[in-house]
């Protein structure tokens, strides 16, 4: 059943014990992502050096889909070029919109969020950590969210 795919073990695990949950000392970029309608409210923090993301963390209160996405995303971001994230975000979004596309191996665990595509009302939750990351990156270094 679709519901079991959405709330599969991996996603539930990330929800219960999110990775990289908390704050970074020396974060160079940060942004707050607030989805008032759903009640999701997260803070994404990043350390970027020479255009490369070194560390990522998130905090806040959110639903399982947002939390699992933020958890997986903050695991995946370190080592990526900041300038590539917009493209990756578009690719992730495409995977959530079109279930006939093959998985994108480079997105690793994030592919596990694809069952969200069967829950149109929840797609926004999986996108929130991505859009928040992009906003953090687009802000001048050191701006407080």
């Amino acid at each position, binding site marked *: 059943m679709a519901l079991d795919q959405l709330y599969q073990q991996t996603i539930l695990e990330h929800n219960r014990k999110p990775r990289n949950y908390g704050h970074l000392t020396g974060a160079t970029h940060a942004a707050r992502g607030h989805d008032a309608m759903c009640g999701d409210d997260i803070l994404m923090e990043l350390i970027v050096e020479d255009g490369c993301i070194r560390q990522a963390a998130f905090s806040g209160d959110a639903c399982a*889909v947002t939390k699992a996405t933020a958890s997986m995303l903050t695991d995946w971001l370190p080592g990526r070029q900041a300038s590539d994230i917009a493209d990756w975000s578009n690719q992730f979004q495409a995977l959530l919109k079109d279930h006939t596309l093959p998985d994108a191996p480079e997105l690793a665990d994030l592919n596990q969020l694809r069952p969200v595509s069967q829950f149109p009302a929840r797609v926004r939750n999986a996108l929130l950590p991505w859009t928040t990351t992009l906003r953090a990156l687009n802000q001048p270094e050191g701006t407080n969210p």
Partner: protein
Amino acid sequence: MEIVKSGVREQLDVLRLRDQFPVLSREVHGKPLVYLDNAATAQRPLAVIEAMDRFYREYNANVHRGVHLLSVEASEAFEQSRKAVRRLLNARSEREIVFTRGTTEAINLVANSFLRPNLKAGDEILVSHMEHHSNIVPWQLLCEQTGAVLKVMPINRQGELLLDEVESLISERTRLIGIVHVSNALGTVNPVAELCRLAKRHDVPVLVDGAQATPHEKVDVQALGCDFYALSAHKMYGPTGIGALWGREELLEAMPPWQGGGEMISRVSFDGTTWNDLPHKFEAGTPNIAGSIGFGAAVKWLEEVGVTRIAEHEAKLLDYATKRMLEVEGLTIIGQAANKGPVISFTLDGVHPNDLGTIIDHHGVAIRTGHHCAMPVMQFFGVPATARVSFACYNLRAEIDHFLDALEKARTMLT
């Protein structure tokens, strides 16, 4: 018009009533639908669906403009609906009933036509902390444009209006008080009559947001002593996109039109235009004719079923659900006013409302999750969102049991 037999009011025959709501027999995700999102919008009985269908099939025409039979019939049905809404609210005259798109538009009408023309910088508008955004944002817009000030009437942790503190907030600059009759986010039934008495002593007009009240109680605007009353048909088993503003005739009479166009005029020339009589002065353009007819049908349907009997049934559901929910570990009811309508907002430890809503939907249970268009009251209780169940005449105790089972399944799944 309630059916009273041998002096004892008959109880609502809910199972028979349910047959009148086609949508209630459908399944969602392979489970029977349990519809507990009635505060967002109620379902429609056949009487409403068929009245609108009949209009389109048999006498669809524009109103108040033709001499032909169809137009005469449509105009007659349209005005009959206005009469029904007058009865619903016990207004003195049909001239006081203005059709609008709903509560939101009714409030905006008051903001723009009643307050705006005379509002000055430093004037004050009072609303409660538990208002729906539709009774906050129109005033904020007005304040931004005029320099007037929006002030907030406080509430307590139960979600009740602190009536004793209202008086000290009223000043000689207070131009209007806006109050929700029954809160959609908390269920609180506000002491509107008392508030109106207090306001009257200071000569301050009161607008009541009645969106959540008319489906659950007999409203009498004269007894309440308010000046404006706003409502939406879709909350009371009627169609969407139609509602009404009731206003005291002398106030409406003195107010300028707020939208210009056809229907609202009496004579137009380039030298000047004169306005139509009440209530048409406020109804520019071709109205929502089918919607109004459906609205009238919903009022008649409510009269036949009896809103008091409905309220008794819903009060039992509310009691039962409240008692059972208070037994659920980790469940907190947000809004525990002594006087409540059939609405329960709640949070459940470890389960975000969004996930709860999705999971129990798959067990057939439709509830609302989020901020319920009342973000200030969510902020007051320090919660980003809640889940909310709300009951209507057709809900059953068994549905509450089913909802609670689904809730446990969601918890098991997530924790």
